[in-house]
């Protein structure tokens, strides 16, 4: 796979006082892939993302995003990326169409709010307030706001946390569509089944270090080759498959 790197992170370090949140991380994200940053809470995933998103200062190291240096070309980078933050809210008392309108002003682009909402199947909620949406709708709306400036890369920080299986699958589908449209996706998650299903490549982060980067398939094959065996016999389906089979694939709105 001779692919071109769209994000290059070299020896990234971030200290908060004495605490080393990120301790010398290096990786590349290839153009057009879904790249997963995986790891337990406090591993440094969100900090790493926020430094690449230009929201936080790094302590040392170098990062280029789509050819731009993180220190010198902050504004150019901001115009080329879309960011979904963990637990971010939106301007109060505005409906979804008005929020899209606001963001198009912030990005300095002209978009039709209805077209943006159509991309995430929320046109019928155009007049609804963000706080009145279901969990899955909220995440889809957040993703819509990342697409407003037609970005080269979008960053999604735990987009499926707290969603039911239907909403989660629905969101995977949306993320794949975005990738297929030519946008690179960087995602963090706690769910390994999600990473296995969705990500083209994943990096494991722990204690501020990267402990491995590869495709999910390679990681699994490698582990199996080392003689690993699951304690429980693997069946052809798991409980989530049962859940989906019994409750249906179509997605329920809250």
């Amino acid at each position, binding site marked *: 796979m001779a692919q071109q790197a769209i994000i290059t992170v070299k020896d990234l370090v971030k200290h908060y006082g004495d605490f080393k949140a990120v301790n010398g991380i290096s990786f590349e994200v290839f153009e057009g892939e879904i790249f997963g940053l995986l790891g337990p809470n406090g591993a440094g995933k969100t900090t790493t993302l926020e430094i690449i998103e230009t929201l936080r200062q790094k302590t040392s190291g170098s990062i280029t995003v789509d050819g731009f240096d993180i220190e010198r070309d902050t504004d150019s980078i901001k115009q080329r990326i879309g960011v979904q933050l963990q637990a971010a809210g939106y301007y109060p008392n505005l409906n979804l169409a008005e929020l899209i309108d606001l963001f198009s002003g912030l990005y*300095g682009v002209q978009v039709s709010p209805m077209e943006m909402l159509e991309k995430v199947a929320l046109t019928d909620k155009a007049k609804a307030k963000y706080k009145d949406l279901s969990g899955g709708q909220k995440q889809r709306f957040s993703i819509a706001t990342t697409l407003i400036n037609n970005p080269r890369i979008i960053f999604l920080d735990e987009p499926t946390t707290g969603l039911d299986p239907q909403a989660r699958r629905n969101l995977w589908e949306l993320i794949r569509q975005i990738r297929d449209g030519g946008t690179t996706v960087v995602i963090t998650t706690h769910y390994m089944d999600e990473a296995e299903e969705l990500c083209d490549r994943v990096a494991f982060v722990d204690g501020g270090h990267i402990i491995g980067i590869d495709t999910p398939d390679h990681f699994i094959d490698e582990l199996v080759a080392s003689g690993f065996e699951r304690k429980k016999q693997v069946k052809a389906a798991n409980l989530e498959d049962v859940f989906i089979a019994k409750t249906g694939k179509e997605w329920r709105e809250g």
Partner: protein
Amino acid sequence: MTSKNYSNFRATMAIAKASLRSTMRSPSAVVFTLAFPLIFIVVFANVGGAGVSVDVAVAKNSDTTNAVYQALKKNPMIRLVKGLSNEDITKNLAKGSLDASIELKPQQPMKPIGLTVQYSKASTKGEILKSTLNNIFYKIQSSVYEKINSFSGMKIPDVIDLKETTITGRKHLYIDFILPGQLGFSLLSTGVFGTAFVFLNLRQNLVIKRFFATPVKGYSIIGGEMLARIIFGLAGALIIILTGHYLFGFTLIHGFVTVLNMLVLSIIGLLIFMGFGFTVSGIAKNESSIPPLANIITLPQFLLSGTFFSTSAFPAWLRSLSDVLPLTHLNNAMRKVAFEGAGLGDVTHQLLILLLWGIAAYAVAIKIFKWE
């Protein structure tokens, strides 16, 4: 999308538009900016408009054809209350809810008019009735003397030669006092509460953090929010001024020009009060800590800055305190502009003190304000 084409102006306007939409849908903003000031204006305009009134009970069986009764009835200051029993009259006089009572005996030709008047220790307004009655007696006596004069030809010399004139002038209504005060209060609430709540809310819900993932600049966010609050505050000011003028006769000496001057003063006031709001948003840890902090700033000014009553009634030590507060000077400037027809050049003393407050407010706000 190149960085050259990015418009900070457009981003600022987008925030101003969003903030204005949001504010107009927020019940508390509308209540504090418009509803409260208008309610106070309606209440106090009516209290003030009626002037002093003396409640006088008329005892049952009183002769209402009596000349004294007719004269009292014509006096706008005297409110005659009929139909109360003697017991009720005594009870209400003791409480002070009646100022006096009067019993008028049937009038008979060539006999003195029989009157029984009761005053109340609980009310000081009995004195007004007393002097009104004396005035009536004097007039009745004079007409009796005149009659005697015309029959007897005997000349009784006038003791007093009274000439009364009233200088015509602008009528200073209570609304002329209360409206500028309420306008100041409205601007203070919008500036302090509005700004503090918005920035705390945007900071806590990571709305600002999400904004900073776009190319928007910090000054665009601040500028847009301030612009929205100025537009909202001015719209409120205009509604208050026009309601006062057309419904309650609030004096606008030079009409439109006076309104413009008042709006300029409103902007100056808002700018200063927003500085307080930024500071409060920086100190407050959460939403419930905003009201106490904001009240520390707004309540003393509400009470001591001549919002409801003139500070000239205060004892000297209290007046020196109110002379320090910015709202006092905004209120004074507003009154001078509206009622005396002063231009902005005539209120430079007030503007200078407001400028000092503005510098102080923003010096503190810049130190304390937090983005995250």
